């Protein structure tokens, strides 16, 4: 009798584990979901980004924007496609940097948060980065920001796209070696002394 109770409890635990794994797997499917009517994060979120940490009075609280595009493989791959097609590579050279600063290292002149990157694209930056204000839709801005951060290993690894619909010029993100954790990829906008 005792043995039977034990085996029943075992079965119950096993069922619970199976259900938990199935639920996790179902949730994982969302990373491949293609949402064509997706809503971008609140559009002017980047507008709250300050260019400097110096300010009168009490320090402003650090805004924390969640970029939903970073959790979705399709959105990141779209960001990658736009990054190539709109010639971001012309200066940033697939993230390695050329005329423009590299994007795959841990040096961020104007901040590494999603809203910082969106602000950089929309506003432009001195010495070369053009302003794309009104020329790129919100959804696309956040997709590009997600891809830019994925190059530096700042996004979760799970949703990195397994393959592109486009011609590939380098190994898939999923097949590249894991990036080491980056100590100085801090939040906010650290005013760095480097010139772009």
């Amino acid at each position, binding site marked *: 009798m005792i043995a039977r109770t034990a085996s029943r409890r075992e079965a119950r635990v096993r069922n619970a584990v199976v259900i938990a794994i199935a639920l996790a797997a179902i949730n994982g499917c969302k990373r491949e979901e*293609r949402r*064509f*009517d997706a809503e971008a994060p609140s559009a002017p979120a980047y507008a709250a980004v300050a260019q400097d940490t110096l300010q009168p009075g009490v320090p402003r609280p650090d805004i924390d924007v969640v970029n939903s595009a970073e959790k979705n493989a399709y959105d990141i791959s779209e960001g990658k*496609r736009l990054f190539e*097609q*709109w010639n971001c590579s012309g200066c940033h050279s697939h993230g390695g940097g050329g005329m423009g600063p590299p994007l795959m290292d841990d040096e961020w002149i104007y901040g590494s948060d999603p809203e910082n990157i969106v602000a950089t694209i929309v506003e432009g930056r001195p010495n070369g980065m053009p302003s*794309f204000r*009104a*020329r*790129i*839709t919100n*959804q*696309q801005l956040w997709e590009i920001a997600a891809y830019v951060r994925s190059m530096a290993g700042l996004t979760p690894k799970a949703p990195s796209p397994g393959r592109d*619909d*486009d*011609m590939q010029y380098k190994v898939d993100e999923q097949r590249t070696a894991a990036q080491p954790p980056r100590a100085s990829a801090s939040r906010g906008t650290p005013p760095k002394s480097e010139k772009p």
Partner: protein
Amino acid sequence: MSAMTWAGSIFDTAGSQAERIARLAWFIITVSTIVYVLVLAATALAVRRARARTARGDLADQAPETERRLTRHVLIATGVSTILLLVYVTVTAQTGRAIAWPMNSTQQPLTVEVTGHQWWWEFRYRDSVPSNWLSTSNELHIPVGRPVRVILLSNDVIHSFWVPELHGKQDAIPGHRNTTWLQADRPGVWKARCAEFCGYQHAKMAFDVVAESPARFNQWYVSQLASASPPTDTSAKRGQDVFVQRTCVMCHTISGTPAGSRVGPELSHLATRPSIAAGSLPNTRENLSRWILNPQLIKPGVHMPPNPLPPSEMNALLDYLETLK
């Protein structure tokens, strides 16, 4: 010209290549149908005879001479089938050879580079003078009676170029050049399609083919080669400003303006085209505004984003696009 409702048929031929293909198709369909009917008839006959014999208690099936006779019949049937299949192979190879190359044409061929994109077609007409190279999208004009060399390229995944009235299918493969030949023997307007599944909007990746007399073709070519005429009225001028200062400029080209991106279809002479969105919609003002506002409602997954322009800008933009003759 009802380009939208037209279904397309390989039997409605407009060129010698498609004619050869249609002839081959009819031959194979006819012979195969006859063979099919004969086999069914023989089976039915055999079943009836066997039943009758069983009812009679006849044991002739087990006699050695019956066995020999049946073996002979099977051998004959196999031999006839083999010969028929060899005939199929021969005529198919002959047809393939005959349509691979426009052997009997004396005219200088026209060369068109076709690039398949998700989900639209780009056409570049080559010329010995580089300034005469013409770039257009989703509409292929060809002169009647002149061979056209079609060089097939792809920018993303495998597509397939298919004008059913003129020729068979040929794949457009990324990183590889394929060549096929077309020649229209009569004027006409047809809908051509992508014939290789290429993603979400494969079904809405069509283009218009216009075969016309060489004189009319040249006229079209010259008009397309010219820069887009600058807008004259105020609203259209404002529309041009909207085009080059909003999202449009990131992907589209209009010659004679700063818009020169090659990501999406070329729009220099948009108003002359019968359809928009790669053959998905007739080119009307209403469809154009629906398409610009939210392409994702018409072709979900298409790479063009929704463009929520305020009505004043949208009207001006539509006024401008309608001047692109």
